[in-house]
């Protein structure tokens, strides 16, 4: 697909995006973006991840031109677009609420952007139909918006943005309104579409699971600042600070009381770690804890007491007590017997699986 109105040079369909020193405040107290520098690579599936109110939507709206930053520069494909109004940017957005026009049917919704760009009727119809085919909506073209399910609406919002063949597609929590099943399906579908079209996707979510499933790279935001920028694996397994670690769902975080080479003293006991890191806290991911028979006696071997256990289907969650310290462990459900509450079980943690993190805000 080529883009008729692309602001960057032809033949470079997916541009990179550069943000420099972006600042945005709504009032003296409300600082939504606090100096964001960021480069999003051409053609990547990039995710902005962070808790509610951290500034994700604000960042996206500035990219789309729907809001103006107080300071900073936005470059798309190398061009400074900071002052270009939204209807002149080759950037499209899939809104959280879809924002489909209720007075138009599916076909006219998809065609809206093309019509506004002045695409001829024949051409327009052809492109809408192609897009409908692509996204498997053809039978719905004549329907009114309120006759559609959530998942169908989501796909139409996507189609409406994609049919304009933008250089960059922005997606603001497009899946958060859906139930778990549909959400899983659409996550996969979105990822496939992005790979097929090779566009640059900037995706916003507050769900770390979703971010990890879909993204090439993730920027974790908090209080308008980027906390960690990296691949899902980097962020999940080596979080930059305790904020990122907690946000990724890790709760086995312990203070380091003293360190000697690769030996760390923690409330849990003495831990052998693999690499020499300089973090302030030690992080043990629950799924890395080996339990019962699987526990190996050679390194980081402890005896724990089972406080509670929860059957979670594919895995079993244990709340363990090791001395004064409470620990969460996940063990894959392969039909084994559950350990009973109060039972003493041996546990071990492989030194490579232990990481240290710095104190984040």
């Amino acid at each position, binding site marked *: 697909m080529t883009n008729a109105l692309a602001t960057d040079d032809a033949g470079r369909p997916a541009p990179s995006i550069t943000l420099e020193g972006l600042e945005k405040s709504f009032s003296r107290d409300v600082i939504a973006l606090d100096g964001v520098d960021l480069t999003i690579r051409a053609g990547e599936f990039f995710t902005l991840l962070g808790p509610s109110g951290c500034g994700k939507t604000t960042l996206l709206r500035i990219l789309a031109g729907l809001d103006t930053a107080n300071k*900073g520069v936005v470059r798309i494909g190398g061009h400074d677009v900071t002052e270009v109004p939204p209807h002149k940017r080759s950037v499209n957005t899939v809104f959280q609420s879809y924002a489909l026009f209720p007075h138009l049917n599916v076909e006219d919704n998809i065609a809206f952007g093309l019509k506004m760009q002045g695409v001829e009727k024949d051409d327009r119809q052809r492109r809408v139909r192609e897009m409908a085919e692509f996204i498997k909506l053809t039978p719905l073209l004549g329907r009114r918006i309120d006759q559609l399910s959530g998942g169908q609406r989501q796909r139409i919002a996507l189609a409406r943005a994609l049919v304009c063949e933008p250089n960059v597609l922005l997606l603001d929590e497009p899946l958060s309104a859906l139930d778990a099943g549909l959400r899983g399906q659409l996550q996969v579908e979105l990822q496939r579409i992005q790979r097929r079209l090779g566009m640059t996707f900037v995706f916003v979510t507050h769900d770390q699971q979703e971010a990890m499933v879909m993204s090439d790279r993730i920027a974790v935001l908090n209080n308008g600042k980027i906390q960690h920028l990296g691949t899902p694996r980097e962020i999940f397994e080596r979080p930059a600070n305790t904020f990122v670690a907690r946000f990724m769902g890790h709760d086995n975080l312990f203070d380091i009381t003293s360190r000697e080479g690769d030996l760390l003293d923690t409330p849990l006991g003495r831990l052998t770690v693999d690499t020499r890191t300089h973090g302030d806290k030690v992080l043990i991911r629950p799924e890395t804890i080996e339990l019962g028979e699987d526990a190996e006696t050679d390194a980081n071997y402890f005896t724990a007491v089972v406080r509670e256990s929860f059957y979670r289907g594919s895995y079993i969650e244990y709340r363990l007590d090791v001395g004064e310290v409470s620990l969460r462990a996940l063990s894959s459900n392969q039909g084994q017997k559950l350990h009973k509450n109060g039972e003493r079980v041996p546990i071990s943690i492989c030194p490579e699986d232990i990481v240290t993190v710095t104190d984040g805000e």
Partner: protein
Amino acid sequence: MPPSFEVSRRSLKWRETRHLLLTTAPGALWIVIFLVLPSLYLVSMAFMTNGPYGQPGMPLSLDAFRQLAGFGFLGWSPGNLYTLLRSIWQTIVATGLVVVLSYPIAYYITTCRASLRPIMLLAVVVPSWTNQVIRTFGWMNLLAPETPLSDAAQFLGLIPEHMGLFPSSFAVTLGLVYNFLPFMVLPLYAAFEKLDTTLIEAAIDLYASPMRAFWAAVFPQTLPGLLAGVVLVAVPAFGMYVVPELLGGGRSMMIGNLVAGQFTGASNWPYGAAAALLMLAATLIGIFLLRRLGKRAGGGEEVVI
């Protein structure tokens, strides 16, 4: 950042203000010119002196208000007080009746088939699309002496022999109720339609008898609609001119007639202006009290007029 960017931010703010002006100023100015200024002029007229032939003029005085309070050449007279109290009373009675008549109807419509409801609402509203003079005229026809209704009333001993049901204050009340019924049904219906029936179930589930469930779960939910309806009915009923004029026969004069009388007959504009001010004040106080009531009872939901 280059200063030009700051400038463009300021121009953005100005653009917003210009947009606000462009959109709201024409209509707002219209209201200012054709209602606010005239009202201010009317207010100022209340402080003028009535000329010997009924033209307002200088000097400024409080004569009009003195007269309104009942002080005239002959000392104090309660005539205006009667009129004010009569207006308030008529308004309360008519509004009360409208509430009692409308509540079940609004509920009934919501229990009917969804496809029927717009038709039913329309059926209630259509009579009010004809002009108020015509509606009132219809009642004049119906209530006149020697008509079946009047004969029946005579037969029952409700009215003296030879007399009609009109003109009378009964006819005025009837006319008011008839005129304003749809204004109550519509907001009440809207409230009933939004009714969250799980609240009723919750009340019953929590051991409430049907009657208590009504007061706990239905009435509070319809209260905002009811209050909106009360405002929509009571305000114009209080200011009504046509109905008492045509159906009252000069015996059930309301404050609207007192005001109008000074401009269509007696020609004492300052006095009429003062009476209009009184009317406006009473109306605003009434709205204020209703809003207070609504806020207290309606769980914070704003009463929308």
